[in-house]
């Protein structure tokens, strides 16, 4: 059957199981939008800024495990995707970004709305393509989805010149792909796995450090088995939140710069650190030479380049976390755990719990605790970036994978609202909460329109302190309270802004009204609700390890 390149694109997407894409039209994607006009099998969600489309695809992918798809026109449309693509790249999120390009005859002539988007996105994609002929389009799409979702996932961009979208093709979707140069390793080496099992059996003070790879691999069950069988405490990274239930006695919460005291002390004291799907990021390790000084390190990761990148590893295992863990669990002996070690950790837990000083102001930590209560711990929590993100990570107890969506690696302010849009589309029956700051929320606030138009009942909880809070905190502690350009108390009235967009909006200025407002928001199911919480202005995120310090050198209040 002869169809156009644009139609072939949509047919190919459907073959890959895509039923929703987030996008914004423009000159170089007109043929694709024309094909979408009659398309029944794919729902197109019109965002209000291409960056929103990329983050929505990301939020959809993180919350469902499926590949998220976004679509934008050439030039500025494509460059507006860049931050979203980089965000997905840093956190290993499978998205496929499709961009229109000027016609092949116009490429290289600085044509209107021309940008070399494959060149621009080379360092922030797992792979990218500039389509040269319509004949290669179906195979490129098949490869793109395969590359995005397999191995260590990541974003793939496909740039399609406009003339190719018009060209006719005798469409047939390929059954298989030949990618001789791309063969991820899934099975861990059996000898390495048995070494790891032995190391675990002789360790007195073992500790699991679980990252986002556990969630990507779908290995929460195997992680739980390993931890409970060997009685091994578990600390997670920001992206690992939800990989292990934080309500469990073995859970230590997050480690690193804003980690719990007991997690960081445990890292510094352990004699065996089992890193699973984690990459020893500087926000986790602090001063790298002083990280886990007494520990042998087992590192399980699907990406061989992560092994030995930041720390020297005793037992590296390259493979899919789920496959490796299931083998490892069967070889690890059931143990009660070393009483002294578990006792020591429990003592730290009692002595240095996460805490904040309560008074009659609304503390942001209290708001997060109340969000946890109001959602019964069963929401998908999306965060922006900064203090709001850290308080969300510290005070919401995550128990299930794919319920904590946050820009960890890139730290993208403005991620939360559009990602929440994507997550709500992927999970129509779940409560989706965006925990935001007054700075971040304004970076993509236009996506309120997308949420309103699609009747998405997202709860946007703005912890409004009138500051770019995390930067202000650094200025307070490290720059002598010189609050350079971080006071944003001259914000617009967010309640009126939200109402103008058609959202429900509430302002909370009294501590007694926090829960009431949340309950009111939870009852709304036909539109987003923004709650503007006037929180204590100069509250800090503690514990805090200043950059470059060892992670047990914490400022706790």
């Amino acid at each position: 059957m002869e169809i156009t390149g644009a139609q072939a694109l949509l047919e190919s997407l459907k073959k890959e199981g895509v039923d929703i894409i987030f996008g914004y039209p423009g000159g170089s994607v007109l043929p694709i939008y024309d094909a979408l006009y009659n398309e029944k099998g794919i729902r197109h969600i019109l965002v209000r800024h291409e960056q929103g489309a990329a983050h929505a695809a990301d939020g959809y992918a993180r919350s469902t495990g499926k590949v998220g798809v976004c679509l934008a026109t050439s030039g500025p449309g494509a460059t507006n995707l860049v931050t979203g693509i980089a965000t997905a790249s840093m956190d290993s999120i499978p998205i496929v970004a499709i961009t229109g390009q000027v016609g092949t005859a116009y490429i290289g002539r600085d044509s209107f709305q021309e940008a070399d988007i494959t060149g621009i996105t080379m360092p922030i994609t797992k792979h990218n393509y500039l389509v040269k002929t319509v004949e290669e389009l179906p195979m490129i799409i098949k490869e793109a989805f395969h590359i995005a979702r397999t191995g260590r996932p990541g974003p793939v961009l496909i740039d399609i010149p406009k003339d190719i979208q018009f060209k006719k093709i005798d469409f047939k979707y390929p059954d298989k792909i030949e990618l001789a140069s791309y063969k991820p390793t899934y099975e861990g080496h059996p000898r390495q796995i048995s070494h790891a099992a032995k190391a675990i059996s002789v360790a007195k003070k073992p500790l699991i450090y679980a990252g986002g790879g556990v969630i990507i691999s779908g290995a929460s069950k195997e992680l739980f088995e390993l931890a409970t069988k060997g009685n091994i405490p578990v600390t997670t990274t920001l992206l690992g939140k939800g990989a292990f239930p934080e309500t469990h006695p073995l859970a230590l919460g997050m480690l690193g710069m804003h980690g719990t005291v007991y997690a960081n002390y445990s890292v510094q004291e352990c004699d065996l650190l089992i890193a699973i799907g984690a990459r020893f990021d500087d926000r986790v390790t602090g001063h790298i030479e002083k990280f886990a000084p007494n520990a042998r390190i087992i590192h399980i990761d699907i990406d061989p380049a992560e092994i030995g990148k930041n720390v020297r590893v005793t037992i590296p295992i390259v493979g899919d976390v789920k496959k490796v863990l299931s083998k490892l669990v069967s070889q690890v002996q059931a143990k009660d755990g070393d009483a002294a070690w578990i006792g020591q950790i429990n003592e730290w837990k009692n002595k240095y719990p996460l805490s904040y000083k309560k008074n009659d102001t609304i503390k942001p930590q209290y708001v997060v605790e109340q969000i946890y209560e109001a959602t019964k711990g069963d929401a998908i929590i999306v965060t922006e970036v900064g203090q709001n993100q850290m308080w969300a990570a510290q005070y919401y107890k995550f128990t299930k994978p794919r319920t904590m969506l946050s820009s960890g690696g890139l730290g993208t302010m403005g991620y939360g609202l559009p990602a929440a849009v994507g997550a709500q589309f992927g999970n129509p029956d779940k409560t989706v909460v965006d925990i935001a700051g007054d700075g971040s929320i304004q970076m993509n606030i236009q996506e309120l329109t997308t949420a309103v138009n699609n009747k998405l009942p997202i709860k946007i909880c703005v912890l409004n302190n009138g500051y770019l809070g995390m930067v202000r905190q650094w200025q307070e502690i490290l720059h002598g309270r010189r609050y350079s350009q971080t006071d944003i108390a001259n914000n617009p009235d967010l309640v009126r802004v939200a109402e103008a967009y058609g959202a429900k909006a509430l302002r909370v200025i009294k501590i007694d009204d926090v829960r009431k407002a949340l309950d009111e928001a939870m009852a709304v199911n036909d539109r987003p609700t923004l709650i503007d919480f006037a929180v204590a202005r100069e509250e800090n995120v503690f514990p805090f390890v200043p950059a470059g310090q060892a992670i047990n050198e914490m400022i706790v209040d």
Partner: protein
Amino acid sequence: MKHTIAVIVNNRPGVLSRVSNLFSRRAFNIESLAVGPTQDESVSRITLVAKGDDAVLEQIIKQLYKLIDVIRVYDLPAASSVERELSLIKVAANAANRSEIMQVVDIFRGRIVNVSEDSMIIELTGDEGKITGIERLLAKFGIKELVRTGKVAISRGGGEG
């Protein structure tokens, strides 16, 4: 420490920029880079000389393998591989010193490929040390222009690489 690395890549547009982009993005130092076709027209071979300790070399190789278009990467230690570079040197020359220059070229087993009234072009193939050696000896005559291809290398014996 210098490492010579051969990278076998799909012969596709943009592959060279993917490789060079990776080096700048990861802050690896490249000393030279040479690219050309191989016995298989679907693949090209990039020969890189990079600086760094063994841990850096390991990261370079692993990061290269993450590029979808990279098929194989070979580390080529000098002791077990043949390394060559080609250099063209335009040196100032006149009737008085021409024969002295020719002697130097002879000793290095180079060739004179062009002569004009006031200059000569010398072609020299060899390893890095040899090329640096002739450069030093020719310097006193006045090197007007010099171009080097960057190193290419292949492993000794019948094995791959």
